[in-house]
């Protein structure tokens, strides 16, 4: 009986590790930017390319930065949720229009609704690289001091919004 104990123990440990491994998402790489100041940027607005918007302009408010593009299929999944969130007026959402064409982006917003206070044009994807973007859509929660508090990779789901993003926004606004 005793000699079965050790293999059984090894087996149980392996099952434990594999079980946890199954639940992890290898596509989600923890961002080193969490709790660090957001990278500085100054980008033209999508609706008014002659106007620039910079990181300093957001100082003093908690805001969401949502990276999107008209070519991004997964963005369409989360978009209705963002539109809903914007109409609730809980937190301002700014868009980072990542490696997109201006006319296509505008058509896309016209068709699916525009939840953004403003969208910033990052045609070359350089600011995207500064934010460590590697899969669109991505959503950042940035606090009043301009520090990145959270990053969500992939479409925002109602669960993530309800359980993580909204409580965090509430806490940061308190």
């Amino acid at each position, binding site marked *: 009986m005793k000699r079965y104990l050790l293999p059984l123990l090894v087996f149980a440990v392996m099952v434990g590790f594999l079980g946890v491994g199954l639940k992890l998402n*290898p*596509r989600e*790489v*923890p*961002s*080193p*930017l969490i709790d660090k100041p957001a990278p500085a940027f100054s980008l033209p607005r999508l609706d008014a390319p002659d106007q620039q918007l910079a990181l300093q302009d957001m100082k003093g408010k908690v805001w969401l930065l949502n990276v999107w593009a008209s070519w991004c299929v997964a963005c369409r999944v989360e978009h209705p949720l963002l539109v809903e969130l914007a109409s609730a007026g809980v937190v301002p959402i700014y868009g980072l229009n990542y*490696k997109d064409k201006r006319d296509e982006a505008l058509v896309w917003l016209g068709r699916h609704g525009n939840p953004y206070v403003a969208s910033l044009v990052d045609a*070359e*994807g*350089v600011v995207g*690289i*500064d*934010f*460590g973007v*590697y*899969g669109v859509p991505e959503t950042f929660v940035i606090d009043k001091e301009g520090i990145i508090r959270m990053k969500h990779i992939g479409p925002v789901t109602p669960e993530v919004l309800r359980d993580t993003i909204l409580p965090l926004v509430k806490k940061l606004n308190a």
Partner: protein
Amino acid sequence: MHRLLLVLCLAWLGVAGAQEARPLAEDPVLEAKVMRIAEELRCLVCQNETIAASHAELAVDLRKQIRQKLQQGQSEQQILDFMVQRYGDFVLYRPPVKSSTWLLWGGPFLLLGAALVGLVLSIRRRRVPASMPLQRDEAERARRLLGEEKS
């Protein structure tokens, strides 16, 4: 006349195409250096490929960044730091040894050590005691065999 125009147009297209590919060949030394650094970096879109091997758009952009930074005179270490700042240690194919990664580096040796200890223990347990006295029939048989050899 039309045919000549067409040929001229096609010829011009060929020239235009050739010009577009020029930046790569322009400075082979620089390009080799870009590729050497890109070999060290993981592409986050297709995680088992290096930035050098990947055709993902992000990899192309990051190679462009490496090229620009080299042209600005930045060192290889500066460029690697730039990438780690944005994407974390995960982008490095050879992650640094530090408190959060010692298990990654030491794990195989720990396992090897544990296996060796287990091996030694099990060999020791299995070893037959040397001074086990012979049974009577065994002693008889041994004597007989020895006796046969003598004669």
